[in-house]
């Protein structure tokens, strides 16, 4: 296999993976909106299964060490920005709510819970990786 066709295969398979998830998600939204939620979930999972099938089924490695490094950096940066934002916002929202200036939406409490769960999972994972 020539180098250009190998690189083209990598691009094609990666597009297929993204397309599979996108199709599953659009299928879910469409089916759900016309009153077929179970079909929607089935389509969603089919899209996810397609993603996994392409990823694991091809003989060409679709992601290399730089992809993984970029992914790790992006995850760490996104988590840091989100966590820091919530940590700074939390006392502000409590005070604004106490003085009846602004009541945060219920989603804010959900986000705080997500931060707490994520922090707990992080601590457990870090401990496991550190001391295993």
């Amino acid at each position, binding site marked *: 296999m020539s*180098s*250009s066709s190998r*690189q083209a295969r990598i691009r094609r398979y990666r597009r297929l993976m993204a397309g599979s998830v996108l199709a599953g998600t659009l299928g879910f939204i469409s089916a759900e909106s016309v009153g077929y939620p179970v079909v929607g979930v089935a389509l969603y999972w089919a899209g996810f299964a397609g993603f996994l099938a392409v990823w694991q089924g091809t003989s060409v490695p679709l992601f*290399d*060490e*730089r*992809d993984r*490094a970029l992914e790790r950096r992006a995850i760490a940066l996104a988590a840091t920005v989100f966590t820091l934002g919530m940590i700074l916002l939390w006392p502000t929202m409590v005070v604004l709510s106490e003085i009846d200036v602004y009541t945060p939406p219920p989603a804010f409490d959900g986000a705080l819970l997500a931060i707490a769960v994520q922090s707990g999972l992080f601590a457990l994972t870090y401990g496991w990786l550190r001391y295993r």
Partner: protein
Amino acid sequence: MKNSVRERREERGLSQADLADAVDVSRQTINAIERERYDPSLELAFKLAAHFDCRVETLFDPTLDTN
């Protein structure tokens, strides 16, 4: 990190895609290494050095790093 990957690749008449295939990474990764935007793992550095039949420290030169 400063490196001579581009020079050595061009000396051998290889494209970035050819080199990428030889060391099992994407063409974009080779491009990022050549542009000093990505420092490869030890494993990949050794693979590149083996491919060019040279020592890692002659392919990558941390003392010239200006970043």
